[in-house]
C-alpha cells in the first residue's frame, strides 16, 4: 500500500522499544523455560533425547492424541453453538440481538475453572440434570465423563471466539454479494453454502483456530475435571511436582508451543489473500429480514436452547453463591446472602486490584497495539512484520510457561527504590496480563486502522497538519471505536485470567479477583464465597462489556450516518 522511502529515526526507535519489550517479557522468559527440554537430564548437555522419550512413551502419545481430539471436538461443538447465534443475529431482525451478542460473550469473562465447577454441579455424574434424569427416566448421561467433560466445558467457554469473528465477518459481507446470488437463483441453504459461508470463512477460520489453540493449551479445565491424559495437564503436573526436575514437563511445553504456533501459522496461510472485506467495501452488511410467525418460534427456540446451555455455568455459579449446602441434590438445601456478605467484608481488595491490573494491562495493550499496527501497516521499518509475529505469537504460549519463565527471569532483578525482586512486584502481573492479551488487542487495532483510509490522513497532511497531528486528530479519533473494542476484550479476558497470574501473585494484598476466586473455591467449608466472588467478577466485566458495546454501536452508527469512513470510489 504505502511506499515510504524514508524512515524517520523516531519510528525506528519506537519499533525498537516495542521489540525490546517483547523480547524481554515474552521471548526471553519462554526460552528460559523451554531450554530445559533440550538439556540432557544427566549431563546437562544439549540433546534431543528427551523428545525421543516423549514419543517412546505410550502415555505421552496418548495425551497428545487426546489433546488433539479434544481441541478438534471443541471446535466442532463450539461451531454448532456459535453458528445459529451468529446467523440469527446478523441475518434477521431479531429482538434483542445485541443482548444475545453480549450474553454470548459472557462465557469468556468467566475463568474456565469456575465454569467447570458449576458445570460439574449441574451436569456431573451426580449433578442436578443427571439426578433429575435418573429420578424421572432411570438413566443418566455422562456429559462430564473424561474427555467429554473437557470438550463440553471448553466449547461452552470458548465458542464466543467463533461467534465474535463469524458475526463480524457476516456483518462485513457486502449486501449486494448476497443479492446478486439471489438474483441469479440461489437461496436458502445453497445461498448460505455457496456465497455467505465462503465469504465468512476467513472470520470463521480465525475464530476456530483461536478456539483450537486455546483448548489445546488450556490447563485449568482438564485439571479441575481431573483429566490427566492430555498434554497441558501432563506438562503442569510434571513441572509442578515436588522436588522432581524431570525435563518431560518442559518437553511437553515445547510441544504445546510448537503446535500452537503451527496452528496459528496454518490459519495465517489459509487466510492469506482472502481478506475479502477489503475487496468489497461499504455494503452495510447482509440484508436482515423479518421472520415469519413459525420461523420466529423456531429461531427463538434454537437461540434460547443454546443460550440456556451456554449460560448454565453462570446459572450454576449463581445457585452456588446464594446456596447454603449443595450436596447430592438438584438444588441447594437453602439460600442465603451470607456468602456475599463475607466477600464484601474480606475480599474487596481483589476487586480493586483486578480493575487496576486489567485496566492498566488493557491500556498498555491498546497503546502498544496501535503502535505496532501503525508501524506494520503504515511504515516501512525493516523487519516490522516481526513485531506482529512476536506479539501474535504470545497466543501460543501457555500461561503456566510464561509464569514460570517470569519467576525464573525476573526474580534476580531488583526493582530500584522499592527493593523487591521484579518477579514479586505486582507490576509484573500487569505486564504478564498485557503480554497475554496483546494479540487480541493488536487484532482490534489493526482492524480499526484498516478502517481509516490513508487518504483521510493525507487530506489532513495536505491541509498542513504534521504527521503527528494528523495521526492524533484524524487517525486515532477515527479508530476510537475499534480501540475501545480492543480495550474491552483485553480488559475482560485479563480480569479473569489465572494460569500466569497464579504463578506470580506474591502477596494477598496484591492479588487479583481470579486468584481470590481460586483460593475461596478451595474451602472444605463450601465454595459459596468463591462463587459469590465469581458472580461479582462476571457482573463487573459483563456490565463493562455491555456498556462499551453500546458505546461502540452508537459510535459506529454515527460514523456511518455522517458519511463513510472509507471514501467512495475505492473499488475502481
Amino acid at each position, binding site marked *: 500500500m504505502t511506499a515510504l522511502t524514508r524512515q524517520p529515526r523516531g519510528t525506528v526507535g*519506537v519499533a525498537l522499544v516495542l521489540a525490546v519489550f517483547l523480547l524481554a517479557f515474552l521471548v526471553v522468559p519462554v526460552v528460559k523455560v523451554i531450554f530445559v527440554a533440550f538439556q540432557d537430564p544427566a549431563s546437562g548437555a544439549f540433546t534431543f533425547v528427551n523428545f525421543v522419550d516423549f514419543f517412546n512413551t505410550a502415555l505421552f502419545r496418548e495425551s497428545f492424541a487426546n489433546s488433539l481430539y479434544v481441541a478438534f471436538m471443541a471446535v466442532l461443538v463450539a461451531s454448532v453453538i456459535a453458528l445459529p447465534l451468529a446467523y440469527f443475529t446478523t441475518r434477521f431482525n431479531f429482538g434483542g440481538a445485541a443482548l444475545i451478542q453480549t450474553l454470548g460473550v459472557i462465557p469468556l469473562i468467566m475463568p474456565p475453572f469456575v465454569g467447570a465447577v458449576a458445570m460439574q454441579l449441574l451436569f456431573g455424574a451426580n449433578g442436578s440434570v443427571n439426578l433429575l434424569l435418573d429420578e424421572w427416566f432411570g438413566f443418566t448421561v455422562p456429559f462430564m465423563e473424561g474427555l467429554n467433560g473437557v470438550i463440553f466445558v471448553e466449547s461452552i467457554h470458548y465458542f464466543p471466539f467463533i461467534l465474535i469473528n463469524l458475526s463480524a465477518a457476516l456483518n462485513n459481507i457486502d449486501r449486494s454479494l448476497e443479492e446478486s446470488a439471489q438474483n441469479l437463483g440461489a437461496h436458502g441453504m445453497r445461498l448460505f453454502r455457496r456465497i455467505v459461508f465462503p465469504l465468512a470463512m476467513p472470520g470463521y477460520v480465525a475464530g476456530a483456530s483461536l478456539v483450537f489453540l486455546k483448548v489445546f493449551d488450556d490447563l485449568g479445565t482438564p485439571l479441575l475435571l481431573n483429566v490427566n491424559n492430555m498434554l497441558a495437564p501432563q506438562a503442569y503436573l510434571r513441572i509442578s511436582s515436588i522436588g522432581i526436575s524431570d525435563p518431560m514437563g518442559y518437553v511437553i511445553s515445547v510441544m504445546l508451543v510448537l503446535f500452537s504456533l503451527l496452528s496459528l501459522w496454518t490459519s495465517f496461510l489459509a487466510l492469506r489473500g482472502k481478506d475479502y472485506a477489503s475487496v468489497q467495501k461499504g455494503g452495510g452488511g447482509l440484508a436482515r429480514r423479518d421472520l415469519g410467525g413459525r420461523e420466529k418460534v423456531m429461531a427463538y427456540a434454537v437461540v434460547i436452547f443454546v443460550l440456556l446451555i451456554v449460560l448454565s455455568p453462570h446459572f450454576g455459579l449463581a445457585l452456588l453463591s446464594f446456596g447454603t449446602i449443595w450436596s447430592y441434590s438438584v438444588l441447594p438445601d437453602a439460600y442465603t446472602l451470607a456468602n456475599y456478605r463475607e466477600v464484601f467484608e474480606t475480599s474487596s481488595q481483589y476487586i480493586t486490584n483486578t480493575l487496576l491490573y486489567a485496566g492498566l494491562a488493557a491500556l498498555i495493550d491498546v497503546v502498544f497495539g496501535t503502535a505496532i499496527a501503525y508501524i506494520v501497516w503504515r511504515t516501512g521499518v525493516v523487519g516490522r512484520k516481526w513485531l506482529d509475529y512476536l506479539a501474535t505469537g504470545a497466543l501460543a504460549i501457555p500461561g503456566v510457561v510464561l509464569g514460570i519463565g517470569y519467576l525464573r527471569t525476573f526474580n534476580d532483578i531488583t526493582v530500584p527504590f522499592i527493593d523487591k*525482586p521484579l518477579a514479586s512486584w505486582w507490576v509484573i502481573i500487569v505486564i504478564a496480563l498485557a503480554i497475554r492479551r496483546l494479540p487480541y488487542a493488536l487484532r482490534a487495532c489493526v482492524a480499526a486502522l484498516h478502517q481509516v483510509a490513508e487518504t483521510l490522513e493525507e487530506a489532513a497532511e495536505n491541509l498542513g497538519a504534521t504527521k503527528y497531528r494528523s495521526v492524533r486528530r484524524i487517525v486515532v479519533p477515527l479508530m476510537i471505536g475499534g480501540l475501545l473494542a480492543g480495550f474491552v476484550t483485553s480488559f475482560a479476558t485479563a480480569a479473569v485470567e489465572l494460569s500466569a497470574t497464579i504463578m506470580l501473585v506474591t502477596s494477598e494484598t496484591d492479588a487479583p479477583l481470579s486468584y481470590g476466586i481460586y483460593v475461596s473455591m478451595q474451602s472444605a467449608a463450601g465454595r459459596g464465597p468463591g462463587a459469590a466472588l465469581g458472580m461479582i467478577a462476571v457482573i463487573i466485566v459483563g456490565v463493562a462489556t455491555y456498556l462499551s458495546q453500546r458505546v461502540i454501536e452508537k459510535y459506529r452508527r454515527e460514523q456511518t450516518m455522517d458519511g463513510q469512513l472509507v471514501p467512495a470510489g475505492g473499488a475502481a
Partner: protein
Amino acid sequence: MKTSRILISMTSAALLAVVALITAPQTRAMEDKVVIVTSFPKDLTNAFKSAFEAKHAGVTVEVLNKKTTAGVKFLQETAGNNTTDLFWASAPDAFEVLKGDGLLAKYDLKATGIPELIGAYPIHDPDGYYKGFAGAGYGIMWNERYVKAKKLPVPREWSDLAKPVYHDHVGMSAPSRSGTTHLTVETVLQGEGWEQGWATWKEIAGNFNTVTERSFGVPDGVNSGQFGIGIVIDFFGLSSKGSGFPVDFVYPTVTTLVPANIAIVKNAPHPQAAAVFIEFLMSNQGQEILLDPKIRRLPIRPDIYAKAPDGFPNPFEDSSIGAAVEFDVDKSKARYNLVNSLFDVMITYRLDDLRAATKAIQDAEAKAAGKGNAEAARLIAEARGLVAKTPITEAQSLDKDFADIFKKKRKKATDKVTGRQAEVEAEWDNMVKDNYAKAKALAEQAESLL
C-alpha cells in the same frame, strides 16, 4: 515525516502508566509484617491472621495461598531473592525437600509443654528446621446422602474400599500432588509391606471414580456428591462436617498421624515477626483456634482437648489413632519421588485401564462365587496377580542410585545419573498397560467359563 512523534508519545504514555504504578503507596517493610506462603485454606489462615493481628497490633500478616507443590516450586524459584518469611503447610515431606535444598532456617522453639510425639510421629523436625503445630491423620470420608441413595455400606477400613460394592464410588488425590496423600500411601506400603501394600492400593484404586489433581478435590467431590467416598486428611472431613455438609469421617486402624508444620524460610525479610508468629501458633491461644468447626485439626497440646466438642478425636488419649504403624521417615524419604512416580504410572495415568481390569475381575468373582470352578478361580487369581504386579521390588525402591533417577538435583556438573526418568517411566507404563489388558482378558475368559 513525524510518524515517530505519535508513536513515541503513545509508547511513553504506556510507560508512564507503568511508572505511575511504581509510585503507588507501598507498606514500609520492617518487622511490621510477616509474609506466609501456605497451602492451608482461608478458613484456617484467616482465623490465625485475625487473632494474631489483634494480639500484635501493627503487624500485618500477608498470606499467600499456594498449593503445597506450587509453594515449594515458588520458594525454589525465588530463593535467590527471597521475599517469604514462613512456609506453612501440612506435609512434612515438603519441608524435607526445602530443607534438603537449604531453603529453611533453623529455629529454637521457646514454647514449652509440647509432647515429643503425636501418634508415632515426632512433632518437630529432629534437625530443628520445621515445627509441628497440629496433628492430622488420613481417613475415610463419605457423603451420607450419596451412600444412602446408592445403598452403600459405610466403610471403616482401607480394605473395605477394595470391595466390589464401592466400584466407581471412591476418590483420592495423587501422592505426587499432595504431600499428606503421599504419607498415606507410604503408610500402607510400610504397614502392609511393599508388594501387599501396592496390591491393596491397586485394589482400592480399581474402585476409584477419579484421582483428583488437588488434595482439596477429594472433600470437594464428596461434599458435592460427585463421588461418595473419599480418602482424605481428617480436617477436610471434620471441617466439611462442621460446616454443615451431610458427610462423616473415620480413621481406619492403619493410619498415621503426622504433624502439620511451619518453618522460617532462609533469608527471611522479617525474621522476628516470623518467630513471634510461630510462638503464637504454639501458644494456648493459637492451639485453641484449631478447634474451630471450620478448621478442626488436632492440637499438639494435650490440655487443649478439654475444650474440644464431644466426639472430637484425641490422639493423646485414644491410642488407637495413628499408633498402629511405626512410620520410618528415612525409608519414606529415600524413595519419595519414586513412590509418587510409580503411583502415577500405575494408577493416576492408567486409571481407565485399571478400572476396566478391576471391574472384569470383580464381575468374574461375583459369578464364580459358590460355583467351585477351579479353572475360573485360577484365571481370576492370575488376573489379580497381574494387576497387583509392581515393576520394581522393595529393594530396588530403596536402592539409592535407582531412586536418584527421580531426584536428579544435579548440584555439580560432575554429578552423574544413569538412566532418565522418562525412560524408566515409559518402560513401567508399557508393562503396566500390558498387565492390565491381560488381566482384563483373563477375567473375561474366566467369566465366560461360568
